[in-house]
């Protein structure tokens, strides 16, 4: 019985984990690019990486964005909003463009060279996009 419970918990955890997995996807010709978490964080916080990438994000209330904030950026949504207020009103960095849903992110990525966005890992990606980072 104990084994069954342990197996169930383990399985539940794995399913939950898989559902929360995030991929960062780019429209790039270079299919070999793999970024670290630090580089992805910097990219979405407005720091150029030298690849001519332009980050796009989902709206604040979007669940994928909440997971991405927690796992990759490592800050709460309110802190990220404060950060962008500071960057915007000191003229240092520009807020990434917001795209309304995961499906629209996919479309935007396909239509814009250099665009980078994050998506649930479970989403099926078209062949012309490249996964540059994955976090489980």
């Amino acid at each position, binding site marked *: 019985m104990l084994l069954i419970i342990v197996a169930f918990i383990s399985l539940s955890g794995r399913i939950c984990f898989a559902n929360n997995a995030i991929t960062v996807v780019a429209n790039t010709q270079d299919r070999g690019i793999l970024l*670290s978490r*630090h*580089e992805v964080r*910097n990219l979405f916080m407005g*720091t*150029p*990486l*030298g690849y*001519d990438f332009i980050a796009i994000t989902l709206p*604040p209330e979007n669940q994928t964005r909440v997971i991405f*904030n*927690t796992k990759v950026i*490592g*800050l*709460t*949504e*309110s*802190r990220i*909003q*404060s*950060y*962008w*207020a*500071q960057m*915007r*009103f*000191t*003229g*240092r960095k520009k*807020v990434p463009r*917001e795209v309304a849903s995961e499906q629209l992110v996919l479309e935007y990525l396909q239509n814009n060279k250099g665009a980078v966005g994050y998506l649930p890992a479970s989403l099926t990606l078209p062949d012309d996009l490249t996964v540059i980072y994955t976090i489980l």
Partner: protein
Amino acid sequence: MPWRLWNFVLVCGLALLCNAHPIYAETSDKLQFSGFARVVLGYLDDKDAEYLNYDNSVSIDNESLIGLQADYQMMDSLAITGQLIGHSGEQRDSGIEWLYLTYAPTNTLKLKLGRQRTPFLNYSDVIDVGYAYPWATLPQQTYPRHFFSNFDGLMASYEIPSTLFVMNIEGYWGYFKDKVVVSEREMEAKTTGFHGLISHISFKNWTLRGSYHQGTTSVTLDDVTQFSGLLNQLGFSQSADSLATTGVTEVFQFSANYETVDYFVRGELNRIKADFIFVPDTDGYFLSTGYNYFPFSSYISYSKNTTDYEEPASDIPTGLSPILDGLSYNYLNIFEQLPVNSSEAYTLGTRWDIQPGLALKGEVSLIKGADNESAFFDIKNTAFDREALLYLIALEWVF
């Protein structure tokens, strides 16, 4: 005039807000409007003094403000930015806070030319954007209000990303000319050769900032200048020199932030050195830690500063003649009237992020000073014990 401008800006702001996107309004890809507003209610629980113009009645017109910003992208690498602020408080003039051109030849190098915010301390350039920081107000002990908020000149910013950290280096050069209030006196101030170097480093959950600023400041104080001239004519050059109204001012600053999804720790220290009368040498620091439980975060802070003026000279002899005694008395009286603003503050507060772009903060601070010092208080009763509670509620908005 400031009030008329304030009303004008308020109306413009409200009109914009009616149609604005929650974060910012884009009228086209090239022209963007955005803004920020704050309404700050304050109450000082003591009838014997005022602190930063708060007294024992609820006031809303000390730190409330609205700012509007327009960014126009003229070419891929060239943009112009203007920012207009309407202050409710009488201590700050409303008007153009920013007006500068940005030239970005690469995505790591940026040059800005025009009127810009002075980046003395970590939050100096967003001191009016309350939404950008957790506290209802930045501690007076570390962020003295006599610091001028903008300068005219050139700023260069260069970002160095690496696989381990991100470093940003900023350097600027320019000048400042406007009225300032120092040691409870309003005076015309001019700073030339004003320059500084700022370095930011972000590494994992850490953000560090160190900076150095320097300029030659002269202030117009006709009565002091005339008295200093008289002392010089009489041969008391040490006393005359100690009343200098021109001198070099230096600011040193270091701050460190550590933050995660759950909590933050932030600290900042600075040293201000000025070699002329009315601006004391000041050391200030604050330490704050907070716990995030979205949509709330609660924090505690401690801030402290110490100020020291130059000692008066002693080359005027006393006890020889009534004229010299009077001269000495008048000379020493200038120093005795200088307010000593060493103080400390303990703060407890909570920020509630109601929705993206809108936050409500509430905090209470215990401010303490030594019995014989001003400690930033405007004292109404000599029996005042230099201890008071300041309550603040702030509604912060960016759009």
